[in-house]
C-alpha cells in the first residue's frame, strides 16, 4: 500500500518554491485568457 505524506524537512522552502511557480503561471494563463476583455 502506497503511503503519501508531505516531506517533513524543508517544508517551508518546498511550499514557497512550488506555490510561487503555480501562482505565477496561473496568473499569466488567466491574463492571457481574459486580456482581450481587459483592453476593451
Amino acid at each position, binding site marked *: 500500500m502506497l503511503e503519501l505524506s508531505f516531506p517533513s*524537512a524543508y517544508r517551508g522552502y*518546498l511550499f514557497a*518554491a512550488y506555490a*510561487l*511557480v503555480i501562482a*505565477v503561471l496561473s496568473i499569466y*494563463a488567466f491574463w*492571457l485568457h481574459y486580456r*482581450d476583455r481587459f483592453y476593451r
Partner: protein
Amino acid sequence: MFDSWKPLLTPRVFYERIGPYMSWCLAISILLLTLGMTAALFIVPPDYQQGDAFRILYIHVPLAAFSMSTYAFMSVCALCVYVWKLKLHDQLAHAAAMIGFIYALLTLATGSIWGKPMWGTWWLWDVRLTSELVLALFYGGILISRASIKRPDDAARVASVLALLGVVNLPIIHFSVEWWHSLHQKSTLLGLHAPTMPLSMIWPLLLMFVGFFLITAWFIIKHAHGSYKMRSQIAC
C-alpha cells in the same frame, strides 16, 4: 511538398488550424504537471545527501531548461523575421520572449529558494547563476525594445537583432558547470554523461518535462493568437 505547408505561414490559417488542439494541449499539460508534482512531493524517495530539499529540482530544472529552449525557439523565429519578415514568426517570437522571461525569473527564484538551505545563501555570483541572470536581462531588453519602439516593423527588427546576439549566452549557461569550477551541481539529465539519477527519481522529472513542453507551446500560441486578434480588431 512545401506548397502544402506554405499557407500555415499565414497567421490566420495557422491559428485556425491549431485552434482545435489548444484545449487538449492545456488539459494534457495540466494533468502531466499535476502528476509530476504529486510524485515529486509525495512519492519520490528523499536524496541521501540533500534530503527533501532536492524535490525543488522537479520544478527548477524544467524551468531552467525551458527558459533556454524557449530562447532558442525565439531566436529561430527572430531569424525568420529578420530575413523573410514573416508576421507569424514575429508574433511567436514576442510571445516566446514573454514566457521565457517569466521562466528565467522563476528559475532564479526557485534556485535561490534551493540555494538557501543547501549553500547557506540566497545568491552567489557563480557563473551558472550569473549567466542565467544575463539570459533574463536579454529577455527583459527584448520586451522593453518591443514596448518602447512605436513602429512595429522597427520594433521587430531591433528585437530580432537582440535575440540573435543573446544566442551566444546559451552554450555558456549549459556548459558553465563543465568549463568552470562552480558551486552549482553538474547537469543531471542533459550533460555530456549518462543520467546520474536512478529511475525511481527520473520518471516524475520526465513527466514534468513533457508537461512543461506542452504548456509552453500553449502559452506561446495563446499569447501570439491574442496579440493577432487585438491587432485585427484595431485595424478594423
